[in-house]
């Protein structure tokens, strides 16, 4: 990955935050809402986009008569994210050097 090849999924701060949240483990919608500190609408839109791009998968379960969505980072999402972090490190190192 280079500067001109950064995927659209990683071009927006909220989407970067969402992916960062999912690196350690799957999270529910409410957990993501707390961690990203954004609005429900904005989060829903970004989650849908990430799902469309196959960066994340969602799993809906019914708990206490309420539907609950859990989001998980896919292997593709993880690979892209790792490459993106490596690129960021490279940019910083080049600038320092």
């Amino acid at each position, binding site marked *: 990955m280079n500067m001109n090849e950064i995927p659209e999924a990683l071009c927006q701060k909220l989407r970067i*935050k969402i992916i*960062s*949240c999912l690196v*350690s*483990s799957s999270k529910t919608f409410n957990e993501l809402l707390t*961690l990203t500190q954004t609005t429900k609408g904005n989060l829903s839109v970004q989650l849908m986009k990430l799902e469309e791009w196959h960066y994340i998968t969602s799993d809906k379960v019914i708990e206490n008569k309420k539907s609950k969505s859990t989001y998980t980072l896919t292997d593709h999402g993880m690979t892209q994210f790792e490459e993106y972090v490596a690129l960021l490190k490279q940019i910083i190192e*080049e*600038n320092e050097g």
Partner: protein
Amino acid sequence: MNTAANEAIENINIIKSTMDESRISYTGLYKLCIVFGTCNIVLTLASYLSVLLVFNTFITTGFLTFTTVLIRILSFAVPLIAYVLICKKEKSYNNRFYLSIIDTWAVISILLPVFRMIINLIQYNMISNGLLPQTDPAQMVLINSEDLSGAVLFLMIIIIYSNISRKPYIKIIGLIILFIQMFLSMIELSFLPGTADHSTLISFPGYEVYMTFSSIFAFLVFGIGYIIIGVLIKKKVEASTGKES
């Protein structure tokens, strides 16, 4: 520094802080529970054993004083060392809300025996100087308050486990334990030393040692209970991550 580098630093910081916030490792929690439970079991058994030895053998009462002081010191020193060692490595990356809860629990759990030891020393001095009667009911009140505080702290751990395992009904078990502990304390405080006919005590035939129902219950909950919760959290951690231990 160019714009790309500035943006890279900013994005790295966002990633780092978000990952720090979202990552919760319960490794320290289950280790603390197991250490705390084991420590409670060993020290409670040791204290009763020392009483049995003194009253049923030719060992002097000086031995009892020594073991009592040693057990009191170990009851906060062991959890303190465990807390420092276990939580030290988690401080750098764990979720700050989770760390705050663990800190609250650990600090109170460790400080309770310290406070009790200090109060006992003050009480001992006051009894020696004739300021308090030999059979001071305050001693029983103190033990009961410590057991009650312990039950509240145990309820806290049960609530954490209930949230980790996503099983809200487990909280009811914690509430029942707290209720039983309060009920036993109430019974015992109704029969304070000097007025009690030992109806709330269990004696061992042939041995000069008495145990209250409350202390037996506290022993089971704060010893075996903590170990069970620790093992359950460990299983949950291993099942959810498959890599943490």
